[in-house]
């Protein structure tokens, strides 16, 4: 993997606006090479062999994750309470949704890999409310078409998502799917709109809805939208752990609606899955050693809140001393400690590889990078190609 320098398309903001990506600069004035968020002047170049390694690692890790969910549901449901902190109704809901096979559409793993002889390692799995789909499936795809038409890219995300929605359509009996996100969060609303676009193309009638506009109707025993129409299927960009903590969350478990991503994804997006994966597959080349609780006194570790997001409240420790940390709103709760992995580092940038799973298979890559040791939500996104 090589970090290549180049130049952005002169009209890159307009090109991105065409595909709904208007949050590329986070409100700041765009620079010639790219925005604070999307940076296309530079890109990562891989070999076909490296793409194969990432593809295989993603498939293997997804399989391990499904195995872990199955183990929890069938063999150790009590751990959903003790380790994942799920209330009993939510744990039951998770188990039901897994056993009856509620369909899932997508997830994005964050992988650590420097391209060397070691294997890519799982940092975490954003299996519930992944973003970066527009950047992956659209922004870098159109970038490649325009700038490097002769090169290839590991990026079948758009087609895989479309396939996923088609499969979903066949299970929905012609009913509609509501797409819920926060209207005032541009990145999330744009993603919800993109997923709605795909659903429409798959023949599913859709309707957008702001998350606070979802209402429970006690008489009818169903969720409704602002027009008093029943919500039979819901795609939500709202994490399961937040829904579980909401006062009305238990209404979800009455099973009057189908939810995408399904309840069982709550387990995979929770970092308590990481020690369980290690416990069940110790020494697996694609896993890092992870334990519950604070970092051991010796070695290099990364402490993460079990329910943190976007690189918040992370502490990097060496032999018990903190060498880097981030702030955020997720502190104070339980943590897991993960062996520090070798991240991609070139030109002074630290990189994390986002690897998508859609329609049940590896579906593409996206790169994020930051100057700091911890890549956060304010890191920037770069396209990639391979030859």
């Amino acid at each position: 993997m090589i970090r290549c320098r180049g130049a952005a398309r002169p009209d890159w903001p307009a090109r991105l606006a065409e595909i709904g990506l208007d949050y590329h600069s986070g409100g700041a004035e765009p620079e010639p090479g790219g925005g604070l968020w999307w940076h296309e002047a530079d890109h990562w170049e891989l070999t076909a062999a490296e793409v194969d390694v990432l593809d295989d690692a993603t498939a293997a890790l997804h399989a391990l994750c499904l195995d872990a969910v199955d183990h929890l549901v069938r063999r150790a449901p009590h751990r959903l309470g003790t380790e994942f902190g799920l209330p009993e109704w939510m744990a039951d809901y998770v188990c039901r949704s897994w056993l009856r096979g509620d369909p899932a559409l997508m997830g994005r793993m964050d992988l650590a890999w420097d391209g060397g002889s070691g294997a890519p390692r799982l940092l975490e799995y954003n299996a519930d409310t992944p973003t970066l789909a527009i950047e992956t499936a659209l922004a870098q795809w159109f970038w490649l078409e325009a700038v490097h038409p002769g090169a290839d890219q590991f990026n079948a995300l758009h087609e895989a998502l479309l396939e996923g929605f088609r499969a979903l359509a066949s299970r929905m009996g012609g009913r509609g799917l509501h797409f819920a996100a926060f209207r005032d969060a541009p990145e999330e609303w744009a993603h919800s709109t993109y997923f709605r676009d795909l659903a429409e193309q798959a023949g599913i009638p859709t309707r957008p809805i702001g998350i606070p506009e979802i209402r429970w109707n006690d008489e009818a025993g169903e969720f409704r939208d602002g027009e008093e129409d029943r919500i039979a299927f819901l795609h939500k960009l709202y994490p399961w752990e937040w829904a579980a903590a909401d006062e009305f969350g238990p209404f979800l478990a009455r099973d009057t609606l189908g939810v995408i991503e399904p309840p069982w994804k709550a387990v995979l997006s929770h970092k308590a899955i990481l020690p369980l994966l290690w416990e069940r597959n110790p020494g697996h080349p694609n896993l890092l050693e992870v334990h519950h609780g604070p970092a051991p006194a010796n070695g290099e570790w990364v402490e993460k809140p079990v329910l943190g997001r976007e690189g918040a409240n992370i502490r990097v420790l060496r032999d018990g001393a903190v060498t880097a940390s981030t702030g955020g709103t997720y502190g104070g709760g339980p943590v897991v400690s993960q062996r520090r992995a070798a991240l991609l580092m070139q030109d002074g940038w630290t990189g994390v590889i986002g690897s998508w799973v859609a329609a049940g298979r590896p579906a593409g890559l996206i790169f994020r990078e930051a100057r700091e040791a911890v890549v956060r939500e304010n890191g920037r996104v770069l396209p990639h190609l391979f030859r």
Partner: protein
Amino acid sequence: MRRSRTVTLTLLAGTGLAVAACDSEPAGEGVLESRSACVQELGAAVSECDAVFRSARATHAATAPRFPSAEACREAVGGECADLAEEPRDGRGLPWAGTPAAVFIPVMAGVMIGRALSDGSRGATPVYAGRRPPDTACPPEMQGREGCPPASTASGSGGGHYWYSGSSYAGYSGSGGSGGYRPASASPAAGGAMARNAQAVSSASRSGVSASRSGGLGLSAAAHSGGGS
């Protein structure tokens, strides 16, 4: 090849037309009255303009305001109206297929492509000549329901010579907040169970969601920057 072979978008900011065919910006606020105008103004292929109009016509049949008679329709919109039964039913088997007879809708005057809707989405939205009717017409999924039509004020989207219906099950978020034929109203019977939560949500919500609107999800987001990851 390990990337998507084609990428088509219909709802997201660009239209399929814009990303598939042109390097130039698609027409902005323009209304295209015919396929030939579409071909001429956008420099697009005839087949692509056909697709735009087919999509708009399907949306039109599914979402145009309904009236019980041609006279009521003409009076409301000040333009030509037609029997819904006469509308071509191409598209995707949309919900008007089962609508009883004697439903009249305004005639589609053209399509609008471009950044015209409040949520920033673009699409081939059907537009109508004349004036926007007051919000007393029912969206198709409300036909026959009790309490339809409710009394409310018109939001007057579109304006000028053309107007569009603003909301549809096919997915266009409308102008002016409620984005529909009528504002979201919290009926006491329906909202009761969530009333307590709704108060908390409205005070904790991160934007201008009005306090009168009943809410369900969202409370746990108050402390964080968003739900994506």
